[in-house]
């Protein structure tokens, strides 16, 4: 298999960010999804939610202006933007579980053609499983977009017919953004919407574990 090269991690986040309309309330998962906020300009008003109790997360604080009481779910220091509100855990998860979020952007180990996804446990023994808010976001957000590398280390496909890892939620994912492509999940399975520059449909299909319509 020839090594194929697509979007960088910042480019992946930028590509996804471009699709978030003004006015949406969006939760960004820990890790790569958190980068998405960097590519949504402040004048496009998107309300970022952090499940530890923030609606309206702003940019990272300037050096010297950090407030140790203000962190996001990834334990990073944050600022609030004008219009922000703070709340406790029950209310913060009410936002998620009450279907008030327009979008959750989550990382993934596997995404299946039926919209199932797995991102919380490899199922390996001896490793403490850690779910955090992933299952709440998976079941609660109006839409779930997964942002992940297209292929796992060792060349194993992450877009699959059915997940083999323990599920996070069933049938929730509507779109996947990878380093190689943008793929919708429809009633008939994966549908390839866009390839990274220089890649063909065949290139992307070759490293996917299920047909791309």
């Amino acid at each position, binding site marked *: 298999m020839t090594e194929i090269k697509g979007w960088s991690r910042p480019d992946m986040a930028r590509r996804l960010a471009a699709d978030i309309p003004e006015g949406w309330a969006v939760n960004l998962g820990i890790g790569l999804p958190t980068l998405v906020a960097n590519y949504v300009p402040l004048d496009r*008003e998107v309300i970022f939610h952090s499940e530890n109790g923030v609606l309206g997360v702003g940019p990272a604080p300037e050096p010297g202006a950090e407030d140790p009481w203000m962190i996001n779910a990834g334990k990073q220091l944050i600022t*609030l933007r004008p*219009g922000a*509100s*703070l709340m406790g855990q029950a209310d913060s998860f*009410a936002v998620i579980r*009450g279907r*008030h979020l327009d979008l959750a952007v989550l990382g993934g180990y596997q995404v299946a053609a039926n919209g199932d996804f797995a991102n919380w446990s490899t199922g390996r023994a001896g490793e403490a499983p850690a779910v955090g808010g992933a299952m709440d976001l998976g079941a609660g957000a109006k839409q779930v977009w997964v942002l992940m590398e297209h292929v796992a280390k060792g060349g194993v496909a992450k877009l699959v017919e059915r997940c083999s890892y323990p599920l996070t939620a069933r049938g929730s994912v509507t779109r996947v953004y990878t380093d190689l492509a943008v793929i919708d999940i429809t009633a008939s399975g994966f549908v390839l919407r866009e390839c990274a520059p220089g890649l063909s449909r065949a290139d992307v299909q070759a490293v996917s574990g299920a047909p791309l319509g």
Partner: protein
Amino acid sequence: MIDKFVPSVEAALDGIGNGATLMIGGFGTVGQPDCLVDGLIARGLRDLVVIANNAGGDFGGLPKLIEQGAIAKVICSYPRATGKTAFDALLAAGKIELEIVPQGTLAERIRAAGVGVPAFYTPTAAGTALAEGKETRVINGREAVLEYALAADFALVQAWEADRWGNLTYRGTGRNFNPIMAAAARFTIATAHHARPLGALDPEHVMTPGLFVQRVFVAGSAL
């Protein structure tokens, strides 16, 4: 730019049609969205289902809406009022349906809809007429009644302050049902006494995040 302010009651209520299920905030005279209820009366609607704590009382526009025949069903905890009301007459004539719910169960069912809990158990009303026909289960040795989330098409709520994102604060005992109704309805319309610039409300003290609010009309009352 997100801007949920609308210039009139008419614009605020746009889209509410016959047969809609409406939540109306307030307890007694406090925290009721009076101008919005008055606007509803002007629309001349039919077959509404109204979820509110009171029904028959002599405060606010709800009794007028009932008198008008706009309401097919009321879900509330306390429809009784001093003196005979239009509600009593319609109820006696079988022209309005009443679902009576203990006030705390009403609050919790409304909250449940807003937080994605489809059903829950409560010991309240176990063994009483209000639990008749309902599923029950003994949990930790105590009988509890299964109650379902109560959602609505629209919520009409009254706030003290609002900003253009729809963030709200309430005043005094005016909070009551307003925050849980705002979260429970698919479309929430707020009236507020004061418009504030974005960022003026303390993030610690926002009582309803704008996410739960679709439109805000600033009534500009003197209070």
